């Protein structure tokens, strides 16, 4: 098979250069190889590279494809990007929105304000075209490389076959200079929803297919729509069974139309037909230009397990959701956040390989929650039976006059990170009257601290956080050095981490999730909880 591009690039980010591996007489063996240079693959390379772990990333293109695709990046994703050192450029470029309006036919049913909680560095959401998101990640990779991070991005390197052994994987790769072979101790599959790696290994990917097609049109226009999310059920302008209008940077608007199941894809993508739908929606006086159009279908499904020996899957390769609720790219970045530190500790011999099974458990838990939420949104937006359509419209009718019906209106739920409730890395909660949002397994909520924010001080390694309790500056245990951080019981930190408790001690994982918490500092309890958190007991 020739090495042709399957799509046009928005940005060339990792042009092909010949690697010394290509002339080697014996295949060179690398600790980690990442397959796929999308947001999840690049973030994986960045996470590992910043830990000083050599990582090779292979992609069959030389950069990021055209099209806005994932446009909603949630707070948790931005916090993770901040830990990697590239959250700020995303926030600077992104569009922040808080107000959403829901319409049915020609009537506004209600409007909602996300009313973001104060005291966080990042907003609930930004809208940002996926190519920008990927470019900021790669910019950060280049900066990290300049500072010595051992990251090797190889464009136009297509993996054709893999041979999975007990303790390594052999990869055969095609390049413009011909084929070569490398070996990897660990292979991370970040090669997207149609993952070639998954197919090469003959692994399952099962779930529910939704019988609907959505037309995306990105347009630029002069019209003065506000920076709000507008969603129509059964819009009066008849451009689709539902419609969505959302603002992106560079004066670009994302418009989605629900087309139904039985459509002629080629016909619908013709410019005159796309324009007919847009004209009906925007009215005759609005001038606009088409930037990008696409038709998508979606499925909600996941692999049975995300780890197969030395091969680990992350992002869309491992799980796919409907786009409602922005849980695709966002959950993929959470996979990386979860995997990075675990793989790091296993590679340097601090933690047993069993720690990686917790990646599988925790992220399957996350995927199931995302699939549940996005399936429910989809069922509301595209009712599958007459009775579900009747109920849906009854909810919309009632929501206009009665507040109780508004929480039932589901045009996509805010993407929030899951809590790893009841999973094996947690130590049972020893602060039972503490706030539920910071229970073991939960991601740490941000809060102002000094001139910056609490999350600036967490993550990357294990931290022992004392809130109104003094903890030691360092504590060595199980081959790790715990970093102590004592902060006063005041302000938002008090509300978010103490509730009514006078003080608390938190053990926080490198991915900023709570591993354990107590009312006081007890060294033996901390040591035991740390062992549990790295699967060492």
């Amino acid at each position, binding site marked *: 098979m020739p090495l042709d591009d399957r799509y046009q690039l928005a940005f060339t980010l990792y042009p092909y250069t010949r690697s010394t591996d290509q002339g080697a007489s014996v295949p060179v063996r690398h600790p980690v190889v990442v397959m796929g240079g999308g947001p999840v693959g690049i973030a994986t390379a960045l996470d590992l590279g910043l830990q000083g772990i050599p990582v090779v990333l292979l992609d069959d293109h030389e950069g990021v494809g055209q099209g806005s695709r994932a446009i909603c990046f949630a707070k948790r994703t931005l916090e993770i990007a901040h830990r990697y050192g590239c959250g700020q450029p995303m926030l600077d470029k992104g569009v922040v929105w808080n107000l959403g309006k829901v319409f049915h036919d020609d009537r506004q049913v209600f409007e909602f304000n996300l009313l973001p909680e104060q005291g966080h560095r990042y907003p609930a959401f930004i809208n940002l075209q996926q190519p920008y998101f990927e470019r900021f990640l790669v910019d950060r990779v280049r900066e990290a490389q300049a500072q010595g991070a051992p990251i090797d991005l190889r464009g136009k390197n297509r993996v054709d076959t893999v041979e999975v052994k007990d303790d390594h994987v052999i990869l055969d790769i095609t390049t413009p200079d011909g084929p070569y072979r490398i070996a990897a101790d660990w292979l991370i599959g970040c090669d997207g929803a149609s993952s070639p790696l998954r197919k090469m290994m003959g692994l399952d990917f099962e779930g529910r297919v939704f019988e609907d097609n959505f037309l995306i049109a990105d347009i630029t226009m002069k019209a003065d729509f506000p920076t709000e999310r507008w969603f129509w059920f059964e819009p009066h302008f008849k451009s689709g069974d539902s419609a969505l209008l959302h603002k992106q940077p560079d004066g670009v608007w994302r418009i989605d139309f629900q087309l139904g199941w039985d459509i002629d894809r080629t016909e619908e993508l013709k410019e005159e037909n796309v324009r007919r739908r847009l004209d009906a929606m925007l009215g005759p006086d609005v001038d606009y230009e088409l930037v990008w159009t696409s038709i998508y279908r979606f499925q909600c499904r996941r692999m049975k397990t995300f780890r197969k020996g030395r091969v680990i899957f992350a992002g869309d390769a491992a799980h796919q959701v409907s786009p409602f609720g922005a849980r695709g790219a966002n959950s993929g970045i959470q996979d990386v956040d979860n995997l990075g530190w675990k793989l790091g500790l296993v590679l340097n011999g601090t933690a047993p390989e069993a720690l990686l099974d917790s990646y599988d458990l925790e992220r399957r838990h996350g995927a199931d929650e995302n699939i549940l939420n996005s399936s429910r949104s989809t069922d*509301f937006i595209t009712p599958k039976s007459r009775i579900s359509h009747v109920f849906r419209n009854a909810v919309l009718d009632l929501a206009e006059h009665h507040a109780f019906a508004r*929480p*039932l209106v589901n045009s996509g739920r805010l993407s929030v990170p899951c809590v790893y409730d009841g999973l094996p890395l947690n130590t049972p909660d020893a602060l039972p009257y503490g706030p539920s949002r910071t229970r073991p397994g939960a991601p740490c909520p941000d809060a102002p601290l000094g001139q910056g924010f609490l999350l600036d001080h967490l993550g990357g390694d294990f931290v022992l956080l004392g809130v109104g309790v003094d903890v030691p500056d360092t504590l060595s245990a199980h081959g790790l050095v715990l970093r102590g951080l004592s902060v006063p019981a005041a302000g938002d930190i008090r509300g978010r981490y103490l509730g009514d408790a006078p003080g608390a001690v938190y053990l926080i994982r490198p991915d900023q999730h709570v591993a354990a918490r107590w009312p006081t500092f007890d060294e033996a309890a901390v040591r035991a909880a740390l062992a549990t958190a790295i699967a060492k007991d």
Partner: protein
Amino acid sequence: MALNTAPNIPDPDGFYAELLDAHDGLSDDDSIAFNARLILILANHIGDRAVLTEALAAVSKGDTR
């Protein structure tokens, strides 16, 4: 007691999914009958005649179609 039209159902998405699951596989006629039984059992649970009258009026007003 007046009719409560403020949000009052914990886990609204879960409730809505359970409601639709209950109808899964029913014919239209069976779904209508199911809804009638559901309304009657909920009305009995409410029990307050004034509230039931108010609910009937609220739904009539809410039907703007």
